[in-house]
């Protein structure tokens, strides 16, 4: 057994007879007992990676081990080591919450009594005890996600894959789920999490990899990445494009990176927002350039992408085919 919960070497996965490269040489090392984040927009290859690691897809080339076990050589033993919770919250709507968990427990080959007691325990822990005997059809979005997560935990796997666990949830449900995920590492579970939200990755993951079109474009701890990216975006609106160009000259020497220049708007990624903002205003005022608007905000995934790749995160790009476009054929 090696030191990593998940290790991949140069994973490539193509679809549509090689026309689409969803993953193009991705090497990952996920240390045990941590939350590890895969950050990227739709179509960056996150979900494809999770599906390869959970043995649903096979890689076109490259290799991967989960819990020290090769995903292609012994997929059944990999499945005994993992729990998977997906962005589409795959619970059986016809069953109650309890029946859903017991079924997954039984299919993980827990004895009947253990499957039932684990199910009750998790329902209680995730605030679903009152809804345990209600059909999952009646659950809210947040309850479904919690049930889905509980199903992934029934068999106490050492490694958990969470594919965009909070996408589409309201803020309160998101907070609830974050608290649960944070609690998981205290049990020693390794979590590999994909997300489109910088905020989520920053809050939950110690180490991050940023994916774009199947490539890793940045990696490190969230502190390292934030230091690289700046923690605040300063947005300045001027009254004309000439003014904006002049302002850019004036502000070039500030400790900031220009993340975007569009028409009359300048965006700067900075570490010390208020101080840089004050200095910028002083300089612009000194040059008699009129400032039409100013804002300081948290960087978004879009900002991360702009500063890392020079292009915006293209939501819904074609790199990752729709999950169940079943015309494509997996190589046999």
């Amino acid at each position: 057994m090696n030191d990593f919960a998940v290790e991949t070497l140069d994973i490539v996965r193509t679809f549509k007879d090689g026309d689409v490269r969803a993953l193009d040489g991705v090497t990952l090392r996920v240390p045990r007992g941590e939350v590890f984040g895969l950050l990227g927009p739709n179509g960056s290859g996150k979900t494809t990676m999770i599906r390869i690691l959970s043995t649903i897809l096979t890689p076109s080339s490259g290799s991967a081990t989960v819990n020290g076990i090769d995903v292609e050589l012994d997929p059944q033993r990999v499945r005994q080591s993992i729990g998977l919770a997906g962005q589409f919250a795959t619970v059986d709507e016809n069953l109650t919450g309890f029946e859903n968990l017991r079924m997954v427990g039984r299919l993980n080959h827990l004895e009947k009594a253990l499957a039932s007691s684990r199910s009750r325990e998790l329902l209680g822990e995730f605030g679903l005890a009152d809804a345990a005997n209600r059909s999952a059809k009646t659950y809210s979005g947040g309850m479904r996600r919690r049930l889905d997560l509980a199903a992934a935990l029934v068999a106490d796997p050492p490694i958990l894959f969470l594919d965009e666990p909070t996408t589409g949830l309201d803020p309160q449900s998101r907070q609830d789920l974050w608290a649960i995920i944070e609690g998981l590492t205290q049990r020693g579970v390794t979590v590999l999490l994909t997300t489109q939200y910088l905020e989520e990755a920053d809050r939950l993951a110690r180490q991050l990899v940023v994916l774009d079109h199947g490539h890793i474009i940045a990696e490190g701890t969230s502190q390292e990445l934030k230091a690289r990216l700046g923690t605040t975006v300063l947005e300045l609106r001027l009254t004309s494009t000439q003014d904006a160009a002049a302002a850019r000259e004036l502000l070039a020497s500030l400790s900031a990176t220009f993340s975007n220049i569009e028409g009359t708007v300048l965006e700067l990624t900075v570490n010390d927002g208020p101080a840089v903002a004050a200095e910028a205003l002083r300089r612009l005022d000194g040059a008699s350039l009129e400032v039409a608007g100013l804002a300081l905000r948290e960087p978004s995934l879009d900002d991360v992408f702009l500063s890392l790749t020079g292009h915006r995160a293209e939501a819904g790009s074609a790199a990752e085919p729709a999950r169940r476009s079943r015309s494509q054929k997996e190589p046999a």
Partner: protein
Amino acid sequence: MSRPTSPRWAVSDTLVMAQRDLLAIVRTPVTFVFLLVQPIMFVLLFRYVFGGSISVKGPYVNYLIPGILVQTTIFGAIGTAIGLAEDLQRGLIERFKALPMARMAVLAGRTVSDLVRNVVVLIVISLVGFSVGFRPHGSPLHYVAACLLMLFFAYCISWGFAFVGLVAPNSETAQAMTFPIIFPITFASAIFVQIQKMPSWLQPFARNQPVTQAALAVRGLMNGTPIGGAAWLSILWAIGLVVVLAPLATRAYRRVD
């Protein structure tokens, strides 16, 4: 812990999956009721609307009901296709694929639950048959044998419909895809009418296809008339079909992603 692929787990996983599918039926009884409406309509339609115009040896109702029973058990396989297509659509197959369960349990569980459903359907439609005047002359033992034959036959065919459910893009299409298969094999057969009265070009197909053999065997057993080799032929057909269709469905299951 024993190996996840051991036969013991294959049986246990199949039962867990079958139980899940049956729970779904119990939870939505309306669906099951409507499943019964169709064969009951067929009974009434052929008994009271078309029946007068169809002449067979003896009362038509005794000819009709065994046929309708065969048709109904085969129609049950449409549920196999729809159920699997729905699981696929909802992402449940994805979850199952990431579990250390026996690979064939998803399909085996579904076909087993449909078998159980067919048992209930057979009982209900038999009772409906008796109430519209069906008076079989065979022994009760022969009646039970005929039911077992139908269940086995329909079970084997349901593997073909499992394949349909797995290759269909969604459950609506899965349902539509079953019609061009299920209508010819049930209507161009000895289920409702005698084959001698069909056009000559249709007769070779109608006479030699598996559903006709099953219908002849079931009708003969229930009515206590000679069946020749029909029972054995339909069993052989069923075995032949499942030997081809089960690997086909299993392969399709492995390939879906």
